[in-house]
C-alpha cells in the first residue's frame, strides 16, 4: 500500500469517530424514575402511596423478629439473644448509647413519615381524579399519623416534620413537644377519617380505611386516658357497621382468612415478593418464647384462675384451659407439625407462639415462604379499648360487660361471661387480664402496661421457664424507663436533638 493510501485510510477511520462524540456523555437512567419525570400522573401518586405501605414491611418495623421483640420487653416472653438490644431494655441495663429497638423504630417510622410527607405535598399538583387523590392523600395521612403515634409514645415528643424530606431543611429540626406531635396526629386522623372509605373493593383490600383511622384515633386518646373521646370515636367506628369478631380465634391470623371482618388494619405480606420470617422465627427458631407467667395468666375453661378452679390439675397443667391458650401457644406435648412438640422444639422456655404462623397440627416439613400478615389493630382490641374507657367513665355498666363478654364468648373460645356485680376496680382488673390474654403475642401488652402504669411492678420480677427456672430478672426504673433513649447516633447527626431525662 502506498503511503498516501495509509493517510487516507487513517483519516477515514479516525475523524468521523471523534467528531460528534459529545452526545455520548448524555446518559439517562433506565431503571428508575427521576423526580422530574415523576409526580405527573395518578399512577405515580398510587405508586408513591404504595411505597409508604412498603415502609411497614421493612425489617425496622414489621418484618424479621422486630414486631415480636416488643413481646420480649414485657412479662409475656423471653428471647435468649440480645437482638436489637431488647434484653437491655427488658432488664433495664439500656443506656443513652444503647442502639436497637429504639433505633430501628425511629428509623423505620421516619422512613414512612418521609414517604407520606412527599405524597401529601406533591400529590396536590398532579392532574388526576380528585376523589382518588383525596383518598390517596387520606391514606398517606393515616400512615403518617400511625408512624408519629408510634414515635410519640415511645420517645415522647419527636421532630415534627411535615414536608418532603429535605436534607438541608430537616437535618437540624429539634424535637417538638409531645402535645404538638399529638395535635398533628389527631389532625391527620381527622383528615383521614373524612376522606377514607369505610371499605374497599376486593382489589384494594388492605388499604387504610375510615375505621382504621378511627381505631388509631381511639388509641391516641386512650394513651392519655381521654376516655370520653375514646368512647365517642369507637361509637363512630361501630356506626360504620363493617367490623365483627371472626369466629375462629386462631384462624383470624391465618392467610386463608386475610382481610376478615375483624381486621381493622394489618401489614400485608405476599410470597414471593414480600415475605416475612414469622414461621421460621416461631416454629424453627423458637426465638420469642412465651414464659410461664403468661401461661399462668390463662384462666381455666370455667372462667376461673388456675388457683381457684377445681379443673386445674398441676400434673396436667395444659388441660381445661382457656381455649385461646392452645390457639396462641405451643406447649410441650402439644400436637404440632404432625408430631408432638418436644424439648428441642421449645428449647428456651418450653413454649412458643402459634399465633402468626401457618403451622398447624398436621403441617409436614418446614414452611419457607412465610407471608402471614401482621395484625396491627383488630376489632377485639377496639372492644377492649371501649370497655376500658367506659369502665373508667361510668363503671361496669352492661355496655362494658357486653364488650368483654363478646370476646369471651367468641365461638372458638366459649368462656363463661364475666361474673356479675364486679365493682369498677374488679372490672378494670378483668379487662386488663382479658387484654393480656386476647392480645398475647401481638405486641400490645408492651404499651398496655405503660399506659396502666403497672409496668413498675410487672417489669421488676423474674421470668421463668415451664419448669419454673428463673431465666431472667427484669428491672424497670420508673423515673427513666417509660420512654426510650433517643438513638445516640441520631444525636451525633443532629445535635439539636435533646436526649430524654436520665439517659
Amino acid at each position, binding site marked *: 500500500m502506498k503511503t498516501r493510501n495509509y493517510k487516507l485510510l487513517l483519516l477515514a477511520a479516525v475523524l468521523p469517530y471523534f467528531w460528534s462524540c459529545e452526545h455520548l456523555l448524555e446518559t439517562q437512567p433506565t431503571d*428508575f424514575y*427521576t423526580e422530574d419525570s415523576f409526580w405527573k400522573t395518578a399512577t405515580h401518586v398510587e405508586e408513591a402511596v404504595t411505597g409508604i405501605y412498603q415502609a411497614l414491611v421493612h425489617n*425496622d418495623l414489621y418484618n424479621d423478629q422486630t414486631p415480636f421483640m416488643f413481646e420480649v420487653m414485657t412479662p409475656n416472653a423471653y428471647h435468649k*439473644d440480645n437482638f436489637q438490644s431488647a434484653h437491655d431494655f427488658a432488664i433495664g441495663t439500656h443506656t443513652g448509647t444503647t442502639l436497637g429497638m429504639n433505633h430501628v423504630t425511629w428509623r423505620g417510622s421516619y422512613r414512612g413519615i418521609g414517604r407520606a410527607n412527599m405524597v401529601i405535598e406533591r400529590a396536590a399538583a398532579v392532574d388526576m381524579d380528585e376523589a382518588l387523590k383525596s383518598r390517596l392523600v387520606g391514606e398517606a395521612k393515616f400512615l403518617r399519623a400511625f408512624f408519629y403515634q408510634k414515635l410519640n409514645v415511645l420517645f415522647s415528643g419527636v421532630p415534627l416534620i411535615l414536608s418532603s424530606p429535605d436534607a438541608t431543611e430537616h437535618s437540624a*429540626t429539634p424535637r417538638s413537644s409531645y402535645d404538638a406531635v399529638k395535635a398533628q396526629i389527631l389532625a391527620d386522623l381527622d383528615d383521614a377519617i373524612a376522606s377514607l372509605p369505610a371499605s374497599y373493593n376486593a382489589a*384494594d383490600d388492605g388499604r387504610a380505611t375510615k375505621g382504621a383511622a378511627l381505631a388509631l384515633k381511639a388509641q391516641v386518646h386512650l394513651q392519655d386516658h381521654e376516655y370520653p373521646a375514646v368512647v365517642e370515636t369507637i361509637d363512630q367506628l361501630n356506626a360504620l357497621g363493617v367490623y365483627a369478631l371472626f369466629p375462629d380465634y386462631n384462624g383470624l391470623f391465618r392467610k386463608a382468612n386475610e382481610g376478615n371482618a375483624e381486621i381493622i388494619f394489618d401489614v400485608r405480606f405476599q410470597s414471593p415478593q414480600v415475605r416475612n420470617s414469622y414461621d421460621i422465627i416461631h416454629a424453627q427458631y423458637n426465638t420469642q418464647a412465651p414464659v410461664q407467667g403468661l401461661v399462668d395468666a390463662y384462666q381455666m375453661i370455667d372462667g376461673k384462675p388456675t388457683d381457684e378452679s377445681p379443673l386445674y390439675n398441676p400434673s396436667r397443667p395444659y388441660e381445661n384451659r382457656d381455649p385461646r391458650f392452645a390457639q396462641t401457644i405451643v406447649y410441650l406435648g402439644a400436637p404440632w407439625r404432625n408430631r408432638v412438640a418436644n424439648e428441642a422444639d421449645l428449647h428456651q422456655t418450653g413454649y412458643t407462639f402459634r399465633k402468626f404462623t401457618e403451622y398447624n397440627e398436621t403441617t409436614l416439613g418446614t414452611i419457607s415462604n412465610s407471608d402471614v400478615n401482621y395484625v396491627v389493630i383488630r376489632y377485639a382490641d377496639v372492644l377492649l379499648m371501649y370497655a376500658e374507657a367506659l369502665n373508667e367513665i361510668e363503671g361496669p355498666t352492661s355496655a362494658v360487660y357486653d364488650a368483654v363478654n363478646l370476646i369471651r364468648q367468641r365461638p372458638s373460645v366459649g368462656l363463661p361471661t364475666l361474673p356479675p356485680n364486679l365493682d369498677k376496680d374488679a372490672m378494670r382488673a378483668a379487662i386488663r387480664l382479658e387484654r393480656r390474654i386476647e392480645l398475647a403475642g401481638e405486641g400490645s401488652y408492651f404499651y398496655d402496661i405503660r399506659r396502666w402504669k403497672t409496668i413498675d411492678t410487672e417489669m421488676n420480677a423474674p421470668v421463668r421457664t415451664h419448669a419454673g427456672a428463673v431465666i431472667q430478672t427484669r428491672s424497670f426504673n420508673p423515673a427513666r424507663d417509660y420512654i426510650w433513649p433517643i438513638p445516640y447516633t441520631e444525636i451525633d447527626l*443532629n445535635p439539636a436533638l435533646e436526649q430524654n431525662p436520665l439517659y
Partner: protein
Amino acid sequence: MNLTGLLLQQMTRETLIAWAGVLCGTSLLAAQPIHAHAGRETPLGTKSAWVMNQQQGTIGGTVVDSDGAPLAGASVRIVGVQVSTATDDKGAFSLRLAPGEYTVEVSYMSYQVQRAEHVRVEEATATALKFVLETAYDQLDEVVVVGYGTQKKVNMTGSVAVVSGKDLNNRPITSASQALQGVQGIYVNQPGGQPGADDASIRIRGIGTVGSGSKLSPLVLVDGVEFPLSAVNPSDIESISVLKDAASSAIYGSRAANGVILITTKMGASDQSSIEYSNYFGAQQATYLPDPVDNSAEFMEWYNKAMVNQGGNPYYSEDLINEFRNNPTSLEYPNTNWMDIMFGTAPIQEHNLRFSGGTAKTRYNLSAGYLDQEGVLKGMTGAQRYSMNVRVNSQLSDRVNIEGGVLLNRWDKDEPKAGIATVMNRIMRMVPVQPAGRMEDGHWPDSWVLTPGQNSFENPLVWAAENYRKEITDRLLINLALNYTIIDGLEFNFRVSANEGRYDMRDWNTPTMMYHVRTGAPTRYSSSAVATLTDYGSKDQRLNSTAMLTFERALGNGHNISAVGGFSVEKFSGSWRQASVQGFPTTELPELSIGTANQATTGTSYRDALLSYFGRIQYNYLNRYLLEINSRYDGSSRFADGNRWGFFPSFSAGWRLSEEDFMQSVTWLDELKVRGSWGQIGNQEIGRFQYVNSVALGLGYPFGGSFAPGSAITQSKDPSLSWETTTMTNAGVDWSMFNGKFSGEVDFFKKRTDGILRTVALPSQVGALAGPVRNLAVVDNKGFEIGLTYNGQAGVFKYQVGGHITHVKNEVVDLKGEEVIAGARITREGLPIESWYVYKTDGLFQTQEEVDSYPTITNRVGPGDVKYVDLNEDGVIDGNDRYIAGNTFPDYTFGFNIGGSYKGFALTTFWQGVSNVSVWMNGNMAMPFNNGAGLTKNWTTDSWTPENPNASLPRITTRHQYTAENYSPSDFWLADASYLRLKNIQLAYTFAQTPFFDRIGLNQLTVFVNGQNVWTISDMKLFDPEQDLSADHIGKYPSVKTYTAGITLNF
C-alpha cells in the same frame, strides 16, 4: 528448532533426513535445506551441527566482571542464529559453529549487555573471546513505560516506580496485584488467601479520599488499555510502572487520583526464538487460625461460668457435662475442633508455556498459563486460572508499524453457595458439642445438645458437600494499534481496543435432612427445605479509541523537545440478569428449565462514556535541565451537564547535577538528579446518576391479594456534584554512586484532595434517606519515601540489599464542621480518616468497692469487668467518654530485599511490614460466646477470677448478652496489627551449561524452591495481621503460607 535435537538422537539414519525436513519445514524459522551427513563424528548436540555439511569451528572464551571475577551462568548467544549457551563455573563457554561471520552477545543479570561483532569462525579452528561485563549502573538507556509512551529513566521528572517481570520469576503469586508488594510508595495489602479471590488492595501514597472499593483503587492499564489486574497472568508481565505523583499521572486525568499502574506484557525479541516452560507445585496452609476450646465438657463449663458471672443461671446441667466427660469422643459425644476439621493443607500448581521471538521485522509472543489452586478451606473452595496472551508487532514498512494483541483470561472459582463470608462466619461460630462427619448410614448428624445463641446447627461440612456456587469470570482484551511515521520525529498513533468481561455464577442448593444421632430419626433440614437454583450473569464492555501524535526532535545546541497530543473516546456498558427457580422434581438436574415453582428474574443495564484530550510537552537542555508538562481535559457522563468537564494539568522539572561540568571531578558519583513536580488529578468514581433526584422502583406492597408496584425516593441527591480534585506536589532526589553499587531515591510529597465526594449521613428524621453524595471534604496526605539499594560482592559471592520505607500522614482538613462516626470509627477534622473512637479503659475492676466507687456503664458491672474511664468526669460512662485511640490505616509501610548469589545459586528474600495500625476483632470466636459461638483457649487460662487478678482478659461473660459491660468498643480490645513478615524466600539453582543440555537444545535449566508468607512477627496472635483492616471480625478466609518447588526450562 532445538527440540529436534532430542528427537534426532533416537532416530535411525534413514528417517533422519525425512523427519528433519518435516520439522524444519514447519518450524517458525526458515531453515536451510538439509544435507545431514549422519555417521560423521559430529556431536549432534552442537547447535545446527546436523544441518551443516562443513567442518565446524568453535567460538570459546570467558566472561568476567570488571574486577576480573568469572561470571557463571551468563547467557551467550549468536545473534540471528538459534545458538546459545551459558558460562560454566569458571565463566567459560564454548560453541561450535559453521564457518562464517557472527555477532556474539553476552548478557548477565544486572550487567550491561555486550556484543562482539564480526567474529569469524574458520573451519576446525577455535576463536577465543573475552568479555568484561560492566555493571549496568548507569542505565542511560533504561526506558520506562509512562503514560502514552516511554521515557528514558534518567530524563524522568515525575515519581515512577518500576517492577521488572524478572523480579516475579517463580514466585507463587496468584494475582498480579501481589506483584506490587515491595514497590516503593505503595501499600499492598493482601487479606486472605481464598483461591480466585486473593487480590491485594493497592493504595498509592495513602488514602486520598473517603470511600471504598474502586474509589480508592489506582487506575490499571494493560498494554495501554484499562483492564483489571486480576485478569493478568503474573507470568505474562514484562514490566510494571507505577505512576505515583501527579506529574506522571495527570495525563490520565479524571481516573488518576489514586495513581496509575501501567502493565506491559511480554514480547519476543528480534532475531531469535525461544520456548520457555516453567512450573511449580506446592502446598498451602493457613497462616493463623484461632485456637478454640475443643473439649465439650470444658466448653459447657465455661459457658455456665459466663452465665453465672453475668447474673444468669448455668445453662448446661452437671449431668450433661459429666456425660460428655465420661464418654469417649464419638458422633454422639463430639469434641470437635472445627478449625482442624475445616482447614488443611491444600495443593497448588502452576504451569506456564511461552513461545516468543521474531525476525528482524516481526516479533511475537504466544503464551499460555494454567493455575490450579485448591483452598485451605477444604472441600468447598478452589480456583483454576486459564490464560493466553498473543502479541504481534510488525514493521510493515519504514514508516508503518502495526501491533496487536489478544489477552484472554478465565477464572473458574468454587465457593459454597452461601458465599464465603457467611460460611466463614458460621465456621467461627461452631462449637465442640456439634458433631462433624457423617453417621454410619451416611446421614448427617444433627446436634442433640442445643447451643444457646444458635437457632440450629448449621454444619459447614453439609454446605461443602450438598451445595455449591460456581463462578466463571472471563475477560478478553483485544488491542490493535497502528504507528505511522509521518516525517522523521513525528509519529501518528491510532489504537482501538475492546475489553470485555463476562461473569457467570450458579448457586445450587438441595435440601439436606439432618438426623438425630441417637435415634436416627430425621430432625430437620440443614438449611432450606426446597432445592433452589440461581443463575446470575453479568457482562461489561469497554470500547476505547485513541488517536495521538508524537513529536520528538533535537533542535541543536543541546535543546531537545518532544511532545504528545491526542484524544480518546471511551464507552462503557454493562448489564446483569439473574434468574432463580424452585420446584425441582429431581435434584439430579440442576437447570433453570427443570424447576417449576417460584420463578423469579431480575436485571438491569447501564452505560457510561468518557471523552478526553491529553497532551505532554518535554523539553531538555543538554540532558541536564528537564521540563515537562502533562495535562488532560476529561468529560464524563457521571456528572450533570455543566459540571461534566474537568481540566487536570501538571508541571515538573529536573536537574541532573551529575551532568554538570563542575561535577565531573566527583568520580564516585554516577548520577544525581533533583526533581520537583506539581499537578492536579481527578476522581470520577461515584455511582451513576448521583446528581439526579431518583425515584426508586421495586417498593411494592400487596393489596387485595395482588402485588402493587411502589416507588419512593430513597436517597437525597445533590445536582451540583463535580469532580474530586487532587493536587499533588512532589520533590525528589535520585542518585547512583560507586559504579552503581549504591543507589537510592528520596521523595517528599503532599497530596491534597479537594471536593471529596462523600455520602453525607443524614439523621433518620430526613425520611430515613440515604444521604446525598456531595463535594465536601478536604483530605491531606503528606509523607516521604526513601529507597536504598546496595549491590555488593565478595569474590564470586554477590549480594544485594535494598529497602524502602514510606510514611504517609493522613489528615482530614475540612469536613464542613461535621464529623462522621461509623461504629467505633470517627472521621473528624484534624485526624486521619476513620480513626478509632472508643472508650478509654483502665484495666479491670478488682473489687466490689472499686466498682461502687466509680461510674459504671450499667448497674450489672462487677469485679473482673472492664473499667471504662469517665473521661469527661460527669459521673456517667456514655458516648461522651470516647476518645481517639489509634489508626485504622498504617502510618508506615516498608519492605526490603536481601539476596545473594553464589555460582549457580541465587537466594532472594522479600520482607514486608506495616506499623502504627490497630484492629478491633469483635465477632464470633474473637470474643467469647458471640452469638452462640465458642471461645478461644486463652480465655480458659487468662481471664479474670479472684484467684487470677492479674489476668489480661476480663472475667468470662458472653459477648452477646453482656455487651455494654465488657465488649463495648474500647481500647481494651484494640490490637496492634503492625507486622514484619518474610513475604517471600526463594532459592534457585541454575545449572551450568553441559554438553547434554546442548544436545537437547536446552539453554537454561533452573530449579527452585519458594516460600510465601513463611514467617511473621506481630503482636496479633488471633488472626493474620495482614488482613482487611475495615472488617472487625475474624470470620474471613485465612491468609495462607505457600511452599512450592518447580523448574524453569528455556529452549
